[in-house]
């Protein structure tokens, strides 16, 4: 019987290694797999590359992981937001490498990794300092920059409902990067608010099919932690 449920965060994170690239779902505090991210601290993993839209809020989740010094490099579109004090301190002190990526390019690069597209052209950023030293090619009347797929070793995502096959739904704005991260990583781990173990989700309304999900851990933690 297929059963992707893990009994605990620790079990779900088994196999996470030093130097791994982590893809984190979430936009702001909504849809962020806070408990899985904090679980990474307990695993002892370090020298991590983290891909996420924001650089964490307050003292939870990614902010804690950064504070613990586990992250070598951040690939991010919008690290500097209200409450991202830990990021700002680390970055100013030179304790963190940052690769800044436009938000749509960040999503598209992960989607490309998940879809077997090693590289694609986009006009986004082509005429800016972010394209310095990059390959540019003209399509129609627009300069485009070549962007490469962004693969993850492990994706940590947050779902609203899951079944034992790893099918997932999300709630409202909690969807955001989660389905994209799920496609792009070799090992995708979801924390879910609600679990329907043997009762499958409606095949018409599944957002992330189980093929993209390796492990599910049930954490009825309530509303987003800000």
């Amino acid at each position, binding site marked *: 019987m297929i059963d992707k449920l893990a009994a605990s965060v620790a079990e779900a994170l088994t196999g996470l290694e030093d130097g791994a690239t982590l893809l984190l779902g979430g*936009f*702001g*505090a*909504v849809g962020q797999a806070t408990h899985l991210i904090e679980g990474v601290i307990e695993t002892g993993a370090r020298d991590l590359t983290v891909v996420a*839209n924001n650089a964490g809020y307050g003292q939870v989740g990614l902010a804690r992981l950064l504070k613990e010094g586990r992250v070598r490099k951040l690939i991010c*579109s*919008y*690290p*500097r*937001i*209200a409450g991202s004090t830990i*990021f*700002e301190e680390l*970055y*100013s002190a030179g304790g963190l490498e*940052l690769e*800044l*990526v*436009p*938000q*749509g*390019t960040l*999503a*598209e690069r*992960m*989607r490309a990794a998940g879809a077997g597209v090693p590289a694609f052209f*986009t*006009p*986004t*950023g*082509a*005429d*800016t*300092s*972010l394209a310095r030293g990059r390959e540019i090619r003209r399509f129609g009347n*627009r300069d485009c920059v070549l962007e490469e797929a962004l693969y993850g070793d492990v994706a940590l995502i947050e779902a609203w409902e899951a079944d034992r096959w790893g099918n997932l739904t*999300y*709630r*409202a*704005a*909690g*969807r*955001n*990067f*989660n*389905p*994209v991260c799920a496609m792009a990583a070799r090992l995708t781990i979801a924390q879910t608010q609600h679990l329907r173990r043997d009762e499958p989700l409606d095949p018409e309304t599944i*957002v992330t099919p189980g093929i993209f999900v390796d492990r599910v851990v049930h954490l009825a933690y309530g*509303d*987003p932690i800000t």
Partner: protein
Amino acid sequence: MATATTEWVPLSRHQIAARIAQDIPEGWYVNLGIGVPTLVADNVPKEREVVFHSENGILGIGPAPEKADLDPWLINAGKEYVTLLPGGSFFHHADSFAMIRGRHLDLCVLGAYEVSSRGDLANWARSDDDTAPAVGGAMDLAVGAQRVWVAMQHVTKSGEPRIVETCRYPLTARASVTRIYTDLAVLDVTPDGLQVREMVAGLSLEALQEKTAAPLRLAADR
């Protein structure tokens, strides 16, 4: 009399937003940036149905919720709590930016540090060696939307023009902005340069030109 030339009053942030709202027809799909652009939504008449898009996977953004109705899972790209209007939908980030980058938005309204006379947009970083920079969806919106309108103050706090021949701030996108709404005027970016569509009452073209570092002329069809 010297006083006659200074009888004009600049628009407030809310007035700029209201002015922009006038120009958005029913049925458009629109993304609003943070700041003054966000205020545009509340100024569109309720009976005129416009669909507001948010980068984080929402079409049909409605006004801020009453405290009792707040859904902690429903935020906009500025991380403010919002509501969803009838006809709205949720989708993931790659689909959301497919809408932006695939030219499906009729309009986005953005803030800016500077706009050039060719429509170059600078609104994401204050310098090339910005400490802790952030770009977000600005570059995607600037190249993707069918129309890019900018809402901004006509000059900086120290009185320097923000509308220039060549941007000094790092570019967000080249030849992107199609219209500029400031506290003093509405300007179109055309192949023939900047054309003034409107000015606040009492302001002369000469006075506006003094506050603008690129040549202006009056739009022929205004």
